[in-house]
Each structure stands twice: as C-alpha cells, then as structure tokens.
C-alpha cells in the first residue's frame, strides 16, 4: 500500500477541517470527507494496484432493503448470492476501474445504510459526491413513495451539479411488482433525472447504470469548450434493456 502515490484530497483546500469536527460550522460542513476527488495529472494507482486516469465518487442511496449492496456487489464482482447479504450498518465503499473510450475511470462507490436515522451520519458524504444512484425497490411501494423525500435531501446536501440517476431495482420480480415502470419514468421525468429499471439478481442494466454515470462524468471533465454536452438520458435510453427484453 505504501507503493502508492500520494493523492491529494480535499484536505489541502480545507486545512482547518479536523476529524473530530471541532472546527468549521457544523459537523457535516466541517467534516465533509475528502473522498478521492482526484484528477491526477498523470495516471495513478488505485487500491487494487490498477492504473487510472481520473476518479469519481459515486454514492448509492435509497431506503433500507432496496438492494444497494447487492447492486454494488453485482457490479463489482459479477455475483449475486441470494440471501448472503447482511444489512449495511454505517457506510462503506469499494472501487472499480472502468475503461471508458480508452480512458481509465475509477469509481469509488459508497454504499450507505438505508435506515432513516443513519442519514444524519451519511449525508455529510453527499457533499463531495459526483454522482448519486438513487434506488427504490419495484416490489415495495413505500420505497418508491420515499423517492421524493430522498430527492429533497439530495438537493439540500449534495453539490448543485451532482449527477443523479433513479433506479427501480428488483425488476426481475414480475409477480411481486408494486410499482410500474411507467410510474418510475414519470417521476424521473418530473425531476429531470435519467431512469432505468435494474436487477442485481439477473444483472439487468447493472453495468449500464454505472457505465453511464462514468461516461457522463468523464465527458464533463474532458469536454472541449465547443463540444456538445453528453446526453445521459439518450445514451441510457439507447442502451438499456427492459424486462422481457423488448419494449411493448
């Protein structure tokens, strides 16, 4: 581990912030953690020893039990081990390096506890997230109904230009479904965020959800002034699959 290059985080810009949160205005403000907000001038090495050109912080949020950890493990290891997950307590992260148009993009993906009382601990981390994947469970109406509250929370604590994507997870459960895909689409449109249904179990759109976010973030970083904006929703619409494989 000591092989690595020192990576400058937020600390250089806010030297007063301390881990005890003593200084600064509030706990969340003072202690917004540095999190690999990294644009190295030359390739760096991630924890696993892999090279990368740029790094971004992505957070998984949503109610307890919607499948945040499953989605992450599916993406990271390609595995779905039914009934082998324990509830996430607190906050944790894993890294994955993706190759986006020949650029190595490291995603530092933060997994959070979904239970409401943990939010006072976790929202301090929204502040320097580049992207938020907001999940609900298509078999759990309440988790869908809470999406508005989540979006309000995101607006309050995250950066203005944070990339948000809405994901309706567990799309493989056809007979337990409680939220139609159209309802998800409608809500996403209302808030102007891209939307997809995913399944950590079948793998449906899991890779795409992370890749799309990585593409958007990479594009923002490397964009020439006269280059058009990356159209995230268009990309997602073109690439995504729906349950049963074809749209009716």
């Amino acid at each position, binding site marked *: 581990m000591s092989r690595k290059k020192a990576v400058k985080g937020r*600390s250089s810009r806010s030297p007063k912030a301390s881990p005890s*949160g003593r200084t600064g205005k509030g*706990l969340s403000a003072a202690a917004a953690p540095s999190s*690999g907000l990294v644009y190295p001038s030359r390739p760096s090495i991630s924890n696993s020893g892999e090279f990368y050109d740029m790094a971004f912080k992505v957070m998984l949020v949503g109610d307890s039990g919607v499948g945040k950890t499953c989605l992450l493990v599916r993406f990271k290891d390609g595995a779905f081990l039914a009934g082998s997950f324990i509830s996430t307590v607190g906050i944790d992260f894993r890294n994955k390096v993706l190759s986006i148009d020949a650029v190595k993009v490291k995603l530092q993906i933060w997994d959070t506890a979904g239970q409401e009382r943990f939010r006072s601990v976790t929202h*301090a981390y929204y502040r320097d997230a580049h992207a938020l994947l907001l999940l609900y469970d298509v078999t759990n109406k309440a988790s869908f109904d809470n999406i508005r509250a989540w979006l309000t929370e995101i607006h309050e604590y995250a950066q203005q230009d944070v990339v948000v994507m809405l994901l309706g997870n567990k799309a493989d459960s056809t007979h337990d479904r409680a939220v139609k895909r159209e309802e998800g689409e409608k809500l996403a449109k209302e808030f102007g965020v891209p939307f997809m249904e995913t399944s950590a179990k079948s793998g449906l759109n899991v890779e795409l959800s992370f890749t799309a976010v990585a593409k958007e973030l990479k594009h923002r970083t490397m964009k020439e002034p006269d280059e058009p904006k990356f159209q995230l929703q268009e990309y997602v619409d073109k690439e995504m699959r729906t349950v049963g494989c074809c749209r009716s």
Partner: protein
Amino acid sequence: MEKSSRSQPDGRAKDRVGSVDPYGFERSEDFDYESYEELMSEYLVVLTRRSIKWSKLLKGKSKVHKNVKVKRYVRKGVPNEHRALIWMTASGAQDQLEKNPNYYQSLLGAQHDPKLVETIRTDLNRTFPDNINFRKTSSPCMQKSLYNVLRAYGHHNPSVGYCQGMNFIAGYLLIITKDEEKSFWLMDALIGRILPDYYSPAMLGLKTDQEVLGELVRLKLPGVWQTMVDHNVMWTLVVSRWFICLYIDILPVETVLRIWDCLFYEGSKILFRVALTLIHHHQAQIQQAQSLPDICQIFKQITHGPFVDECHIFMQKIFTEPGSLSMTTLAKLRETCRARIIAEES
C-alpha cells in the same frame, strides 16, 4: 515425538475442526484450519482452567455478587456454560426479569406498530445468513426468536424502536442464552443502561462516542490523530460499526464474546479500550497511510489476523496497551463532545 507430527496428527485439521463453529457460523472458504487448531489447542487449556475456577466460585449458586475477584475472573473470560448467568446477573437483567414476570409475554401479545414490524422484517434474512440456526428452515428457528425479541423491544422502548445493528446484538444474545426472554432483558440492560443513546433516531450517543474516541486518540496517539486530520477522515467513517455492532462481525466471535463479558460487567468503557488497543497496536501502519481510502482499508485490516484471533492475549492487552482510562476522563469527554455536537447541529 517431532513437533510437526505432534501438531499435525493423522488426518487433516479441516476434518477434525468441522465447517461450522460452536455458535452455528459456517467457516469461510479461506478459513485457516491449521492455525485455528493450533490456537485452540492452547486456548482449550485456558478454557479448562477457567472452567474449573468458575465452577468452584459458583458452586451451585444461581447468582454472583460483584467484587474484585469476580471482576478479575470476568476479565479472564466467562466459560460459555456460565455466560448467560453472568451476563444476566452482572447487568441487572436478572433482577428486571424477576421483578417483571410475564412482561415479555405481554409485549409479544400487544398490538404492534406496522412500520416497526416492516423495518424489522426487512433485516431478518439479512441477519447472520452464514449461521445455520438463523435460516428460515432451521429448528429451533432463531430467526423467529429474533423477530420476537426485536418486536418486543421496539414496543417496550418506542423512542428507540428498531435501529439496524440491534438485529446483530439480539442475534448474539439468542445464540448465547438460547432464550428469548433473557435476550430481551439483556437488550434492555445494554440499550437502556450500559450504552449511551447509540440507537435512538438522533444517534447522539454514537456521534458523541466517536468524537470521544477521536479525543482519546489525540491525547494518547497524536501521530495517528494527525494522520486522520491530514486526510480529513471523520471518525464515524472508520469506527461507527465498531460502536453500533459492539464489534460483532468486525472481530472474531470468540473475541467479541470475551469483550461482551466485560461490557456487561464493567460497562461501555470497554468499547474504548478495544478501539484504542486496535489503533495503538497498529499506529505505525495507520500513520503510513497515503489517502482516505488507504486509511479505511487499514482500519478494516487491523480487525483481522492473529492479534485479534488470540482472544485471551488480546483481552490482556486491552487493559495494558492503551494505558489508563478513568471513568472521570471519559465522563468529561463525553460531556464536552456531546455539547459540541448539539451546538453544531442546532
């Protein structure tokens, strides 16, 4: 006899040790059976010695009174056969149970808040899926007992209700006591008296203790503290699970149970001793960290390996390695940290 053949009698350690531990947990695929067998051959001697001492001490008694000798005994480990009894009496849970007969049963029969029930249900399949007694199909079904204890506790203490982490605690209590009512009263002792308010919606006690740990590290291990400042790592990021889960799923089962022996007898100060020992013992490693992810990784690593596997030695170290830690210091730090957090949040 040669040493190699003494430590490796015929057959493989894997066949002798078994793939499920005494508490019902399946051993992981990369479990090191040889090292475990070696470790246990030493620890069994300790366990036998302690077991004889405890039998003499208890001599058919159904209660123990707290004194210096018992405290010393507890620090050296309570044999599993006496654990439920010692935890119950030392924490005052036994008194509560006797004073409130049928209370637990009445909680089970009461009307329940559907939201509470739903929250608990979400976590049932996610509590110890690697433990054979917590499967839906196992008999007796500890998952059902877990549901009952958590539901009863949420009803008994509506200001806390259910907080993630409590599922693991109730699970361990059930594994040790094999009794719902005892587990319930031990939960009551832990959450109501022994621990500060870790699990209530504001989680103020948790936030306080994380900061208190930070202050203790600042006093005792300034180099580590500086590293955390340099990389802007909040303590909550690396230690919140240590406090919320009382080291379950962080340290090995046997080590956790030894910590809990002291937790029930001596109180929450023990949680700081464990944290400080882990940090103190690995201070050089932590100070070499180059980034926030590095630090997170190291804090995960230091909870694994021989240092924590050898629970008997580890438990001796927690009382020496971090140095003195008086209740007065702790109380003072808790007071100042708590006030600071309240001021910052308002």
